[in-house]
C-alpha cells in the first residue's frame, strides 16, 4: 500500500455489528471476518475517497500513535483483505 492508494470496500463487502457476539465483523461473499478494535478503526475510515496516507494520518492523530507504526499495521491488514478480494485499491 502506497500513501496515494485509495482503498474501497467493493459491493458485497460491508461492516456489520454482530449483536449476538457483540463484535464488529466484515461480511463478504460467503465469509464473515471478526474484526478487532484496530481493524474496525481502519475500515471505518475507508470510504473510497480518502487515500491510504490520509487514513493513517487521521488514525495517528486520533489514537496519538506514531504514523509509521499505524501505516505499517494498516498496510498489512489491508493488503491481506485485497488478496482475498475483500478490498479494492486504486492508485
Amino acid at each position, binding site marked *: 500500500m502506497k500513501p496515494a492508494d485509495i482503498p474501497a470496500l467493493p459491493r458485497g463487502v460491508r461492516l456489520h455489528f454482530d449483536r449476538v457476539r457483540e463484535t464488529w465483523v466484515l*461480511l463478504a461473499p460467503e465469509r464473515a471476518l471478526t474484526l478487532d478494535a484496530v481493524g474496525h478503526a481502519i475500515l471505518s475510515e475507508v470510504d473510497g475517497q480518502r487515500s491510504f496516507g490520509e487514513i493513517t494520518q487521521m488514525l495517528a492523530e486520533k489514537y496519538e500513535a506514531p504514523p509509521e507504526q499505524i501505516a505499517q499495521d494498516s498496510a498489512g491488514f489491508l493488503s491481506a483483505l485485497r488478496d482475498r*478480494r475483500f478490498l479494492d485499491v486504486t492508485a
Partner: protein
Amino acid sequence: MTQINPPIAMLAELTHRCPLSCPYCSNPLELTRQERELDTATWVDVFRQAGDLGVLQLHLSGGEPASRRDLTELVAGAREAGLYTNLITSGIGLTERRLRELDAAGLDHVQLSLQGTDPAMADEIGGYRGGFARKMQVAEWIGEIGFPLTLNAVLHRRNLHQLPRAIEMAEEMGARRIEVATVQFHGWALENRDALMPTREQAREATRLVAEARARLKGRLVIDYVPADYHEDLPKRCMGGWGSSGLNVIPDGQVLPCHAAQSIPHLSFDNVSERPLREIWYEGAAFNAYRGTDWMQEPCKSCERREIDFGGCRCQAMAILGDPDATDPVCVKSPHHGVLQASADAHATRDDAALVYRSMPQKTNA
C-alpha cells in the same frame, strides 16, 4: 460438555424443485414435493430467528431457489433480519427483470453453478437442453447489475479436463471467486460413483492446476478448492465440525446439521413449525449427536487431529461402512482406507456407466 457456539451460516433449501436433474445433486433421493414446502411467512420468520440466534450468512439454495415465485420477498425478509444473503443458483428461471428485483430487495451475492464449460457438456450433465446458453445470458445480467459473483464449477471424471477453461470463464465473467468443487459422493452422487468418480491422475492434476492458478491469479480471483476426497489421505473437516457453525433447513422445515444428515437412520430431526430454531440448535437431538469428540471411537478418540477434522464426515462413514460413528474411511488411519481407495480406482474405470439423473417421485394417492 462441549461448548456450543452460535451458528454462523444457514443453508435454506427453499425447494427441491429444479429444472436441472444433475446426477450429483446433493438433495436426498427422497425429494420433498412442492405442497410440503414452507410458505413465505414461515421462511421469513425462520430468517428472523436465525438472525437472533447469531447467523450472519444465509445461503438461499434448493433445488433451484428461483423456482420459488416468492424469492424476492424472501430475500427482502432475509435482509430485514440482518443476514448477508447469498443466492445459490443454476441461473435457470432468472430473468433480467427478476434479477433487478432481487437487487432492489438487497441481495448481496450470487453463486452461479457451472455444469460444464460448453453447451454439450453442461446440458448433458444438467439434463436440460439450452441450459448453458441461458446461464451465460444470466451471467451477463449479473455482471451488468454488478452483483458480486462466485462461479461454482462442479467437477468429476467426465468434465475435470475442463477445469482450466472454467477458471478462464470465471475471469471473463468478472467473478471474484471460483469454487472448484470435486463431486462429494452423497445423495444422488452416491448412485453415480461409476459414472463420476475421478481417476487418481485427474485428482492429482486438479490439485496441481489449482495451486498454479492460485499463484498466478493472486489478488484477482480467489479459488476455493474441494478435492476428490476418496483419493485423499486425510478426511474433510465436514461442516467445520458437526453442529459447530452451520445448519440446514430443508423445504418442509426440518432442520439438519448437514444436507446429507437424513442418510443416518438413527437421527430424528426437529421442524421449525414445531420448535424454535434456538432450541433446535442448542438442544436438538440430531445436533447434539456428533458435537465435539465424546461420541468418537478409535482411532479418532485418541487421535491428535480429532479437533481438526472431527473424524471427517459422519454421512460418509454411514454410506461406506454402515456405521455413522466410525472414522471416515478417507482417513489413512481407518482400517477401511485401503478398501475405499481400491473401490475409488475401480469406480473410475467404468467408462460405460450411464448417468443416473435425479428425479422427483411420481404423485401417489397415499
